[in-house]
């Protein structure tokens, strides 16, 4: 699925950088009904993980109260050049991943 990742391409060593992610997902709450009263089954992303050169630096457990197309922003210290890997896990076997690289000077 489509994901938008915003990571600075370059950073100074030790600098605190912001990482912003946006992924497209319906985040169906499981609390809504159709007009004829049938419950719409839950379909949400339950977990998001960010790894920086293989080490987990941020993880989030998401609930139906997170808006559709989950947006997450967080910070990390730029320690070394490398890769950020992002992973979204959800209901019905949903799995999506993305990555972004950073150059640390």
């Amino acid at each position, binding site marked *: 699925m489509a994901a938008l990742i915003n990571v600075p391409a370059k950073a100074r060593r030790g600098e*605190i950088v912001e990482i912003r992610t946006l992924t497209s997902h319906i985040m169906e709450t499981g*609390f809504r009904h159709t007009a004829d009263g049938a419950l719409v089954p839950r379909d949400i992303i339950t977990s998001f993980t960010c790894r*920086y050169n293989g080490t987990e630096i941020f993880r989030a457990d998401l*609930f*139906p109260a997170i808006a559709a197309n*989950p947006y997450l922003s967080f910070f990390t210290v730029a320690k070394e050049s490398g890769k950020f890997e992002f992973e979204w896990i959800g209901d019905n076997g949903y799995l999506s991943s993305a990555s972004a690289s950073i150059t640390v000077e």
Partner: protein
Amino acid sequence: MPTTRRQFLNLAGSVTVAGTIPIVTLRPLEATPAMLTAAIRNVVGEAPVRTGKVKLDIPPLVENGNTVPLTVSVASPMTANDYVKSIHVFNEKNPQPNIGNFHLGPSSGRAQISTRIRLADTQKVVAIARLSDDTFWQVTTEIVVTLAACTEEMN
């Protein structure tokens, strides 16, 4: 007798009022303050939760409860011995009291997260931070919501 302007306006006015009565489907789906307390206890256990250190940035008046921007920041030096382990966000009146759990570490640099949430009603939002010394700090904010989210009918 021809209709007077006053009669016409009276009639037109009452029709408009009747026509705009919203069709509201009330559902008993709502987390109670007791559920909120239980959800918080699930995270903090028996530990005391003090007020302070945590800042919750959320608009006080929300037009559309389907996407409410939310930023939580914690006053912390974020060093190897003194950092924020996790941030937990709860609500009072959505069908479920949890909003999200966010796990940080000393390498986060800054204890701040942002996301967008859903709010089903005018209610309280609570953010709790767990620090590296396992103390808990919280902040509570009241938010007025005009258009609810979560339980509306699907078209």
